[in-house]
């Protein structure tokens, strides 16, 4: 198996109107599927666009296959699926290869036609005459027709029905049969990570909350529920605590902090959703979003 990281960010900060990313270190390992997860505004798209060289870092850097993001040397080796296709709305699907194929060294028109057929994208339709699912599949067909090593997908499943979502997951798994291939995708639907992603990066308010394997995420965090008031000593350990009318509380905690909550609580396993939601609430309730949880 090929090893190493194909995509690395070091202290990447991207500032637009406010901070979109604050000094994030993210590694995407070769040969695996990495899922970026977090609520809207967490910085997922900003990260992917920075990695593609579409957004310039305010500070820090991103490298892809050892080259600075956006270098001509790597553009050819990345297949990209963003929220919009690179094809113009008035183009007919079957002519896209002729129009943009020459931008790539290894465009394979036969592969492109074959994928359209497999994904049931009508070749004679105009791009703006496709459904959301067909548009995503068109983007993937384009992305996979120049033999990329890395597949980058930004929220590929949003707006897809369950059948199309499953098709997409199968397409990614098929791409991953080659150990030299790498996929990185963003999503806010955490259930999609469970059976597809090998590595998870949880983003919240522009910082990395967690980075590792999915089962490690679940081993590290738990949900605590207590009937009484939140003990003062435990306050700092409660991430995104919610209170009910009777004074009971629910919070996300690190498993190591369990003892701080005393014996009269229920400790449950935390789902990926729990982790995303509680971190989001945590940053809403503090004045410096994300900064407390960056470690």
């Amino acid at each position, binding site marked *: 198996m090929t090893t190493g990281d194909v995509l690395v960010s070091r202290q990447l900060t991207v500032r637009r109107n406010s901070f979109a990313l604050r000094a994030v270190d993210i590694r995407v390992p070769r*040969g*695996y*599927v990495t899922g970026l997860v977090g609520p809207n505004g967490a910085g997922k798209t900003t990260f992917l666009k920075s990695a593609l060289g579409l957004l310039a870092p305010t500070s820090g850097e991103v490298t892809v296959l050892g080259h600075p993001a956006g270098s001509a040397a790597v553009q050819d080796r990345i297949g990209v699926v963003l929220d919009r296709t690179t094809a113009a709305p008035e183009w007919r699907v079957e002519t896209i290869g002729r129009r943009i194929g020459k931008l790539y060294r290894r465009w394979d028109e036969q592969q492109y036609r074959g994928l359209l057929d497999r994904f049931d994208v009508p070749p004679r339709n105009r791009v703006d005459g496709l459904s959301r699912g067909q548009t995503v599949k068109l983007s993937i067909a384009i992305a996979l027709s120049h033999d990329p090593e890395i597949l980058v997908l930004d929220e590929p499943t949003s707006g897809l029905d369950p059948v199309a979502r499953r098709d997409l*997951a*199968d397409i990614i*798994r*098929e791409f*991953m*049969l*080659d*150990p030299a291939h790498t996929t990185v995708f963003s999503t806010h639907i955490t259930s999609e990570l*469970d*059976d*597809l*992603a*090998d*590595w998870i990066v949880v983003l919240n308010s522009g910082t990395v909350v967690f980075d590792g*394997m*999915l*089962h490690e995420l679940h081993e590290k965090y738990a949900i605590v529920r207590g009937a009484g008031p939140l003990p003062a000593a435990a306050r700092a350990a409660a991430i995104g605590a919610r209170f009910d009318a009777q004074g009971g509380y629910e919070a996300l905690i690190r498993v190591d902090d369990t003892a701080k909550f005393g014996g009269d609580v229920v400790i449950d396993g935390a789902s990926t959703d729990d982790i995303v939601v509680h971190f989001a609430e945590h940053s809403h309730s503090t004045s410096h979003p994300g900064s407390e949880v960056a470690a």
Partner: protein
Amino acid sequence: MHIILSSTSGVPLYEQIKVQCRAAIHGGDLAEGDLLPSLRQLAAQLRVSLITVTRAYNDLVGEGLVANEHGRGFVVKPIDPKLADAALTERFDRAIEETVAAARAARIGWDVVKERVEQQWNQ
């Protein structure tokens, strides 16, 4: 070997894969020198992540049942009859423990347990 996964059993997916591979080896479905399906093929076939299959296979390597041979994949090792016996005995012991625990939880007495085991034995 045909692996079937349940997503609602509460048993982690990698554990289900491991248990079914182990059973295939101990049960003779896979013989010494046979290759397990490749990590990537099995992941795609079962619709699970690569890491899930990797964890299962690594555990099987740890148990000494298969070896990760560079360039070939995961190969079934000679089945040590002692190890196979030990594994079967361990499985039996675990089943007994579980049976006793379940009986106690359901307040089922020893007489009934004995009777049910006997029924099962004679089936």
